[in-house]
Structures are given as C-alpha cells and as structure tokens.
C-alpha cells in the first residue's frame, strides 16, 4: 500500500496551484480586456439596445473572427468583452466604470449610450486615464468638454448643428417656392428636445422661417391627436417634432390616422431606427429626421448587411455607423501604438482612420463631418443635408402623402 503523506500532498497541491496560476497568467496576457457599461434595462435600454450594444458585439465578433486585435509588434490578441448594466441610472454607470477599472482591470472602456450617461462618467474616465469615446453624446458644449477632458472624443455634434442643417434645407425649399416659410414645431421637455428647440428658435428666425406653432410636451405623452389638429390649422407647410422614440412612432401613426400630410414631416430620435418602416407599414417615404447615412457608399451597405447577419437586425441610420466607426478608430489606434492608453488617446485625436463612414479625422477631438438631416427614400434613410457633403442625396419635398 502506498502511503500518501501529508508532505507529498502539500507538494502536489503547490505544484498544481503553481501550474494553474502560471497558465492563468499566460492566458490573461493573450486577451485584451475591454469593458463597457450601458443600459440593458430601464428607460434608456431601448436606445442602448439599438445603437450601442449591438455595435459593441458586432465589433468584437468581427475582430475575434479575424484573429483578434493587432498590436504594433504584429501579435494578435482576442478581445474579452466585460459588460455591466447601468439600469438607466447615471450613478450606476459611474460605479460600473470604477468596477471595470479596479476589479476587472480592463485595458479599455467603451462608453454608455446617451448624452447624460457620457457626461456622468467623463470626469472619472479622465481621472482614471482612459480614452473616452463619447459617441452618442449630442451637446453644443462638446468643444468645452474636449478641452477640459483631453482624452474625451465627441462624435455626434450639437443642437446647433442639427437645427442649422434643417434650417438650411427648409430655407432652400422656401427659396425654390416648394413650401411656405411657416413652420410648426413641437419638442419634448427633456434633454434632446430642449437642446434642439433652444438652438432652433434663433436659427429659424435668422433664416426668416416663421414659427407659427411652438409648443413643448412632457416625456411619455402618448396622445397627439389634439396637437395634430392644431398644427393642421396653423397653415404651416413644415412640421418639425424634436421627439423621443415612443412619441416619434406615435406621431407617425396618429398623423396617418388624421390624414395629416404636411409637405415636410420631420421627427426626432427613432425615425432612423430600422423598425421605423415597420411601424408606419412601409409608408416611410419622405419622412425626415436627424442623421442619415451615405446612400452611395458600398462600405455602409456592407456594414448594414453584416450587422443584420450577425445581430439579427439592421442598425439605425444615425449613430450606429458612427459608433462602429469609433470602434474601428480604437482598433486602428491600438494597431499603431499598442495598448498604452495615453498613446492611444493621442493617436485618436491626431490620426486618420479608415472606417465604415469613410475617412475620419477628428478636429479638436470632435467629429465635425456629420449628416445633419436624413430622409427615408425607399428602404434607406439617406443623408440629405449638408447638401455639399460627399454622398448627399437630393431631398424629396413635398413629402408624398401617407
């Protein structure tokens, strides 16, 4: 009988432990750990679930399928994605960022969805020294923020940009005699609506556009029948709603019901969503909104196709492609300078990148080459303003009846 002594047992245990640990360490070096926090539940989950999270998953899928992230020394490393749910609260987003850094020791952090969440984590990201790709943040203060937090990047412009793009487009149609200069505007009493309407009022006045109806409505409004009746009576050819998704969908449906057919029908967040044509039963032709994609780009077409294949649904036509482009920028920066966060931030702010939205070069840490107004034409939500941007499509005005 072979005696199994305590000493032998301890020895065996130590050897096993050492081997396991060294294996673990070796494995840990092979993957690049990237964490993100985004809203998987609560009111912000719908936006994050359409624009942000699918693109993170698609990108990690794409990179890992191609062998992993490339480093300057030519080695390739698979990405390990660590995700937290902020339950749609900014405090939870901040806590999750701290956890990603202190416990998970991630190499990079991808941002949450939405302006408020990005603003909430921006000071912390700066303090911890992580590059912050604040993609889905729409703010006129982006230049200030980029100067204050030097490793932050702002890629969706501000209210002035979008209001200006819309005013230019309407101005041109008024000059052509296609529409009158009366505009009816409603806006949601929350971040996006307030930003856009306060930017739009002076800009519309400058362009001699007459605001004949200008009312705000509270978040969560579901019945627009009364508002539509009043807008109809206002005599405006253009109807503009700076709205959030549920209201955007309600407005489209209720305008159809009320046979409300203004020559320009512009609604807010949600209009470029892939499920919009379904909501309006294929009658989306001519509906305008913020954003858009280059209707002539093969890269965008390929990206839409791949997104639909891997994720199961097509992306939205505003911030999705920009989100994916931001990840490609991160990937190319790492390929050029390695995993050093300071160097990656430097490369992001000064480098040129080849992405799905074309060649990108940030100006003062901001993406300025943006689609400001898009329009549903057929099955695609195409960029129509600025009219001189590469790939711009001519807008259809007046919009065909529902």
């Amino acid at each position, binding site marked *: 009988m072979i005696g199994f002594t305590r000493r032998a047992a301890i020895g065996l245990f130590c050897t096993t432990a050492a081997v396991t640990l060294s294996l673990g360490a070796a494995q840990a070096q092979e993957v690049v750990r990237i964490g993100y926090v985004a809203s*998987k*539940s609560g009111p912000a989950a719908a936006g994050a679930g359409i624009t942000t999270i699918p693109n993170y998953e698609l990108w990690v899928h794409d990179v890992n399928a191609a062998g992993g992230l490339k480093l300057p020394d030519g080695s390739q490393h698979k990405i390990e994605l660590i995700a937290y749910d902020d339950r749609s609260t900014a405090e939870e987003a901040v806590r999750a960022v701290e956890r990603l850094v202190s416990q998970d020791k991630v190499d990079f952090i991808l941002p949450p969805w939405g302006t408020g969440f990005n603003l909430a984590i921006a000071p912390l990201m700066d303090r911890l020294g992580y590059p912050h790709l604040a993609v889905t943040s729409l703010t006129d203060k982006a230049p200030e923020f980029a100067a204050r937090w030097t490793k932050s990047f702002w890629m969706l412009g501000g209210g002035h940009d979008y209001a200006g793009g819309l005013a230019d487009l309407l101005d041109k149609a008024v000059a052509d005699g296609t529409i009158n200069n009366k505009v009816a505007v409603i806006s949601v009493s929350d971040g996006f609506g307030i930003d856009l309407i306060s930017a739009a009022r002076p800009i519309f006045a400058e362009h001699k556009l007459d605001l004949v109806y200008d009312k705000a409505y509270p978040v969560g409004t579901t019945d627009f029948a009364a508002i539509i009746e009043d807008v109809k009576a206002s005599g405006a050819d253009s109807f503009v709603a700076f709205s959030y998704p549920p209201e955007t969908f309600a407005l489209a449906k209720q305008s159809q019901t009320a046979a409300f057919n203004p020559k320009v029908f512009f609604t807010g967040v949600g209009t470029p969503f892939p499920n919009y044509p379904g909501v309006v039963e294929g009658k989306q032709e001519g509906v305008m909104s913020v954003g858009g994609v280059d209707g002539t780009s093969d890269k965008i077409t390929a990206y839409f196709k791949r997104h639909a294949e891997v994720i199961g649904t097509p992306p939205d036509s505003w911030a999705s492609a920009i989100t994916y482009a931001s990840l490609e920028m991160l990937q190319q920066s790492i390929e050029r300078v390695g995993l050093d966060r300071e160097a990656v931030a430097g490369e992001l702010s000064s480098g040129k990148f080849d992405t799905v939205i074309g060649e990108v070069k940030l100006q003062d840490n901001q993406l300025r080459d943006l689609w400001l107004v898009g329009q549903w034409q057929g099955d695609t939500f195409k960029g129509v303003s600025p009219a001189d941007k590469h790939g711009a499509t001519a807008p259809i005005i007046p919009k065909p009846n529902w």
Partner: protein
Amino acid sequence: MLSSTLILGLVLGGSYALVAVGMTLQYGIARIMNLAYGEFIILAAFLTFLLFTHLGLSPLVALLIVPLIGFGAGYLLFQLMMRPLVARSGGTGRLEADSILATFGLLFVLQGIMLVIWGGNFTSYAYLDQGVNVLGTTVAANRLLAFGLSFVIGAALYLLLQRSRWGLSLRAVALAPQSAPLVGLNVKRIAAIGFGLGTALAAGGGVMVSMFQTFSANDGVIFTMKALVVVIMGGVGNVMGALIAGVLLGLVETFVARYIDPGLTLAATYLLFLGVLLWRPEGLFGKAVGR
C-alpha cells in the same frame, strides 16, 4: 374646436379608465395594491403582438384569449404569492404595506423576464388605425374601440357586482372580509377570483393598448402610475369611480393641451390629483367599496 377637444378627451379618458379598472378591483376585493399591474398590461401587449405577427390572430380574437390567460395567471399568483401575506396579516392593514412591497419586487422580476425575452426595443404593429369621423373629428378606430370597450366592460362589471349573486359575494368580501365567512363565504377563494378578475382586466387593457401605442418592456411603470392616479382619484376599490376619474383625466389633459399648453398636461394631471386629494382624501366616490 370645443366639440373635437371633447371627443378626443373622452376617447383618451376611455383608455385611462380601461387600464385602471382592474387595479381598483384587485384592491377592492383582494386588498392587494398591485404595483406590478402595469407589467401585466405590457405582458398582455406582447402576447397580443406575438399572436398577431406569428399566428395571424386578430387582436379582437386576442381580446377573448389573453384576458382568460390573465385570469388564470392572476388566480395562481394570488394562491402562490399573496395567500401567505393574507394569512400573516390576519385581516389588518399590514396586508396593504406587505402587498405593496411584494408586488414592487414582482414588478422587477416581470420586467426582467420581459427584457430577457424581448429586449428593450419598442414594439408595435398596426391594427384598426384608420381614422373614423366622429361628428367632424377624426379619431383612430382602435382608440374609439378602446373607449367603447371601457364602457361596455365598466357597465358589465357594475351590473355583475350589483345584480348577480356572485357579485354580491364579491362585494361582501370587499366590505367586510372578517364577517363574510360567517355567512358561509369562502373568502380566500373569492379574493383570489377578485385578483384574477383584476388581472384579466389588465390583460384586456394591454390588448387594447397594444393596438394604438408603441410599447417596450420598460413601459409597465408608466401604466401603473397612470392607473394609480386614476384609482386613488376615483376612490380606491371603486369601479365606477375609476371609470369616471379616468375619463375626467383624459378630458383635462386634452383641454389643457389645446387651450393652455401641451407642456402643462402632466402638471394639470397632478394638480387635479392634488385638488381631489385635498378636497376628498378618500377619492371622488368615497369609500363605498365594491360599487
């Protein structure tokens, strides 16, 4: 303008009344203040959506099926989850606090399950959303249907509670849960039926709501809040009160939106709520439970 505002307000109010009636019933008979009420509405909405898109069943058919499922689910839920609370409270006010806490937890469980199954995306389908001309005002057919239905259901429920023997026993339990067993009523069973009936009404409301509104797994709380305002305003446990308070709320919102400012609809809702609470803390229709 006055007549169109009146019509749009009545139609909106009808949908508020429809979703609130079940909640008031659950409280009136089973003494459970159900904070997960809105989740049942959303669950029913998703179920209707599935039946419509996958099986091609019209939401009107779903209106016959889904409330039945709702009744079963509510009945079971009461037997499994609420019975221990009822037994522990011994017919005191403790049940109210306990049920609020328990259903508050249930809210998150149901919401989580829906998020896992359907994700956080907005869902909608189109059914009966063509306009119907009512005295010169265009109203969506599905909203008109909801309005009509809330009155049919309200009237049927009222008659059932007032005129039938079954309604009598439900009211007896609502009015005097301690004394009801003395006349041979099975309080536990009747409370479970009341709770199930409330859930069935929530499910019916969900089927109707899904016809005219875009919904997502996170929207349950919104319905609970609206229903809570209507229920408290109408007098907790009072079916007629909930119906009238719902219509009143819809009228106030529409009038404020048209004559003052759409931005003040929410403020007007809560002003009305506050006014009612100050004037009649027990709600518009008092404590006549079960009426």
